[in-house]
């Protein structure tokens, strides 16, 4: 038996991560079907549909990440950008 000298933290082992994903997916499914047990009234009709929160949340995030990514093409600059463009910092210190 050759054990690795130092095992990494249990939280980052592949088996743990697999279990975390399974648990996470189970919770996701549960939250959607919880709506069958406790029907949400919704303020505007549409937000009372089954899984509205889930779909809306997911799509909102997708949209925001894509918009950020798109804007990033125009707005992102090298991290030294302003050091090169600002006035020379005073050198008396």
């Amino acid at each position, binding site marked *: 038996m050759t054990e690795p000298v130092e095992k990494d933290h249990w939280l980052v082992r592949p088996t743990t991560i697999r279990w975390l994903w399974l648990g996470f997916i189970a919770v*996701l499914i549960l939250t959607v079907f919880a709506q069958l047990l406790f029907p949400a009234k919704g303020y505007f009709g549409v937000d009372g549909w089954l899984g509205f929160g889930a779909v809306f949340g997911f799509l909102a995030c997708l949209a925001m990440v894509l918009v950020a990514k798109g804007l990033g093409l125009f707005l992102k600059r090298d*991290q030294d950008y302003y050091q090169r463009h600002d006035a020379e910092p005073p050198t008396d210190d």
Partner: protein
Amino acid sequence: MTEFLPPALILLTGALLIGPLRGHWRTAVVLAAPLATLWAVWQIPDGVVATVTFLDYQIEPLEGSPLRRLFATIFALMTFTGGLYAFRQARAVELAAAYAYAAGAIGVCFAGDLITMFLYWELMALFSTLVVWCGGTPAARAAGIRYAIMHLLGGVILKVGIEGVVVHTGSIDIQPMLATDFDTWMILTGILINAAAPPVSAWLADAYPEASPTGSVFLSAFTTKTAVLALILLFPGEPVLIGVGLFMVMYGIIYALLENDARRILAYSIVNQVGFMVCAVGIGTQMALNGAAAHAFAHIIYKALLFMSAGVVIYRTGKSKCTDLGGLFRTMPVTAVCGIVGALAISGFPMTSGFTTKTMISQAAADESLMTVYLLLAAASAGVFLHAGIKFPWFVFFQKDSGLRPKDAPWNMAAAMGLFAALCLLIGIFPDVFYRFLPYTVDYEPYKIGKVVFYLQLLLFSGLAFFLLLPLMRRTLTISLDTDWLWRVMLYRAATAVQAGLSALGAGLHTRRLQWFAALRDRGGYHFGALATRKRAGVFSRTWSIGTTGLWIAVLLTAYLLVYVI
């Protein structure tokens, strides 16, 4: 004058004492002054309790109301916890500046008239600039100057508005108004600059992350939330604020998603959270104003908690970029857990303070049948979880293993974080205890099962989106341009260009003048002799024979005689 001790003066005295005192005495002042202030805050009854005559004005330096006490309470609590967090690590000048800054914020809370409000407003601008400068780096110094310019400019605009209102209405009272004319627009603009509203939101993410790890904790609390209080007092129900707030909400998310620096992510999310409050003030119903005040209270706690958590990481590792960090949960469990509590609270997870306060704002939008506003706020709640709720703890404490194994937080920093983490959970689990302190009677039940299920779906599926979209969110060594590019680069370039143009013009004129003088001297010399040579000489510099000269004299005298006779 008054039988009540002004709370702001207690804290200001504390700030003055921090400098000269040393050792345990200083620690005692740092911890006791905010508590004494808190006590004094709760001695102020409703209504105007002090008046002073200044010039022709009735100044009201102390006016109490539940709303004012609520904000003053959280400012005092924040100062205490910030002091606890910082007193062993921060320099005395930073602590003193931060306490004077907090005193300004508490002064604004109880200001009964526009003149007092303006004075404390400027006190905040001055001492918050000092706190930024205490970052101690050339970058902090430059950011502090930009910060000061922005806030002094905001102060001037506010002052112009106040003068206008005083001249045109004759009243210096703080009372609800709407932005209908030039004066009120100026006041609104001046306040919104402090709230980091567009188009100048950039000052916040520019300055706060340059302060020291302890300084940014103080900075995160006061300026923007004082602006929210001023908006509640002066502009409740101002419709333009709904749009401004929604813009801030989305701006904060997008920029935080693009950002690599952990504290800058948190700074952008301040703009995002203040956007929720500004939007609520715009809705303007009792439910909305309660929501704005409650959310400001809760926000100060969890945002300071997040900055404390990031501050410990920077204090221990000296690094603040997501690309350099990761995997710190192994050796910093306390900091990681407190950071996660703060992150859950800012995302508005059920059982945290964010849920019991932010949903009031959504409820207010739903009550007014503002469906677009409601849905945008819901989308923004999902976005908050994405950019702050998961992104911050994930990239700092988990993600890849950066190989860093720093020690956990020093005891005082851990105690401060523990206190605020507990408050996040307390307000989340026992909201009714907290609701009693809100300005209007609360008729709101946050934990309706349908609502909890909705928010759980919203947030957990945002979490799913985060992990599925991780490849799209790879951190890069970049910053993102903002409107401050206009003055940091474009205006600078324009000024440099104008300067270069003027220098070129000056140099050109100088050369031209030299050429012109040389030519003049040359012509003069040619005509009058100095530079004349035997071969090349002007009429007057030639050598004339006596006969020709005599002839010319005769001709000229004849001409003279003729002219005289005629």
